[in-house]
């Protein structure tokens, strides 16, 4: 379904949704940092900045409770978290690189055992993508086969128009339902052209070639030169739209507390450290190798997808300037 929505009507739509009790999550400024966060009013939305953290947070929170426990003498009572309590959400202004990440994550959270925490949020969230109009030289969505107008993952996709407002196309029943529920705010598509979209400068990687090299080069001296400078923080993984490793910890007192699931990163030494003291990935280059391998080989092996959408966040935010686009490009040329 193709429609047009004016900037003002978009705001009206969001305010209406908020008033109805739907959680509207969109890029907004939090103490000077753009983040996807629930809006109190549509006017808070900042559409022109790539949020510092990706949209995965709406489905796979930074930290969430998975149960509570209470001890009384020898007895323990557990309380489950009812996924039915997750709020209905509309995620608006999502960059194509963030939206495309969500179907990639579906694979891992729904193979074999089903992670209802992710899947239930997924079910209850409508993703409104927004075509991307500005790229810097860290952006490389085009290199991994996506683009600033990529609609994968979006239920509804907005493209800014030259004469103002947005061209609006639905790609799922959820997207269609959002339009139909508020038809009065949408108009028939007009003749205005789309504004010129972002043009990331990175050339397309030959991902097959990259994988073929990775298949053969688990042991390779280049891992050391790539990752010696890595300081072992989790910044790249935490800002990544598709990194999905997590930890499970208990927090509370002797008497009662919660079990929580929170983001973890393969860059941490503790990630694979055994209680015995043995660590299969005992050096930083081994940990960084796992990051690259997971993204461009393991995930491909297991789920037939690339675990990277080229958002460039890890490049911009790496404390020591590790540039995954450059690394993969070099691999593709080997």
């Amino acid at each position, binding site marked *: 379904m193709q429609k047009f929505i004016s900037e003002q009507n978009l705001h009206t739509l969001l305010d209406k949704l908020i008033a109805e009790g739907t959680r509207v999550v969109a890029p907004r400024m939090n103490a000077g940092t753009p983040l996807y966060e629930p809006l109190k009013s549509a006017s808070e939305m900042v559409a022109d900045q790539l949020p510092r953290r990706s949209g995965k947070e709406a489905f796979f929170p930074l930290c969430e409770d998975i149960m509570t*426990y209470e001890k009384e003498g020898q007895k323990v009572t557990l309380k489950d978290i009812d*996924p039915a309590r997750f709020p209905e959400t509309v995620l608006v202004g999502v960059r194509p690189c963030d939206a495309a990440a969500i179907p990639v994550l579906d694979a891992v959270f729904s193979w074999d055992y089903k992670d209802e925490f992710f899947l239930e949020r997924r079910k209850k969230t409508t993703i409104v993508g927004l075509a991307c109009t500005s790229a810097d030289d860290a952006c490389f969505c085009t290199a991994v086969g996506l683009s600033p107008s990529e609609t994968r993952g979006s239920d509804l996709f907005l493209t800014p128009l030259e004469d103002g407002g947005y061209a609006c196309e639905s790609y799922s029943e959820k997207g269609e339902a959002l339009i139909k529920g508020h038809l009065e705010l949408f108009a028939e598509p007009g003749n205005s052209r789309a504004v010129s979209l972002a043009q990331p400068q990175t050339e397309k990687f030959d991902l097959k070639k990259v994988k073929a090299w990775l298949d053969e080069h688990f042991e390779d001296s280049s891992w050391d030169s790539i990752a010696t400078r890595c300081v072992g923080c989790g910044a790249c993984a935490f800002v990544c739209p598709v990194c999905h490793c997590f930890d499970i910890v208990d927090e509370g007192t002797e008497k009662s507390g919660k079990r929580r699931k929170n983001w973890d990163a393969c860059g941490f030494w503790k990630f694979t450290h055994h209680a015995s003291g043995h660590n299969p990935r005992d050096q930083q280059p081994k940990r960084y190798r796992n990051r690259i391998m997971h993204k461009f080989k393991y995930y491909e092996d297991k789920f037939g997808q690339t675990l990277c959408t080229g958002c460039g966040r890890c490049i911009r935010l790496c404390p020591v300037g590790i540039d995954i686009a450059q690394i993969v490009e070099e691999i593709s040329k080997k």
Partner: protein
Amino acid sequence: MCDHTNKNIYLPYLATVEEVIDETPDVRTLRLVFQDEQVRENFTFRAGQFGEYSAFGAGESTFCIASSPTRTGHIECCFRSVGRVTEELRRLEVGDTMGVRGPYGNSFPIEEFFGKNLVFVAGGIALPPLRTLIWNCLDWRDKFGDITIVYGARTESDLVYKRELKEWQERADVRLVKTVDPGGNGPEWDGKVGFVPTILEEAAPSADNTIALVCGPPIMIKFTLPVLEKLGFTDEQVYTTLENRMKCGLGKCGRCNVGNVYVCKDGPVFTAKQVKAMPMEF
């Protein structure tokens, strides 16, 4: 509260500690009974599978289910007290409640072992993952040929399941070769003295129609595999279980992988052939 139809895959079953057995000064066995009647009746597993055991307030740890699937009504876990969770589990007394998730992972293909001789090779705290299979096989004794168990630990007191070792030693249908590392033997020691790979070579079980099951610290495995090869075992005849740090046990959390193999889903039981095909990252 916590029935197995529950959709929350991270929610454990509650289990009561029925018996506490000290195996060594720092290794303890807990015998557990599920509190929910339905779970108690319907919980089944296969030898080699593992569970996630909770000490509430401390977290979860991963161990194999150490009891035999043929002994129903309870399960056992056996662990060394080294970290926050295991120390907390060690504090549990009879009647206390803990959590169990599982069974997870693959298992030993026991049906394929029918009619064959079995050689179990274990070191230290790595006997429990094989003990589940050993009892499974002993309970179905007539389905297997000769059964040899080579088990070693650093010292006499580090040997786990001492009562069962005695029982196996006394059985005519099991050959038990027990050993301790040089210097680990006391005056009463009636077993061998030497490292497991050496003792295995001495014991020299025939590779003919035989399956070898190896579990132990990485260093023991490293030196045992060549010995088995020397004795004529092919890589398909040798099974081992891998131990990696895990959190979810469900193929989600992303830390137990060795290359593209998720130990929690594709393992923990592998043939030596599979292990050799993996990158050296375990």
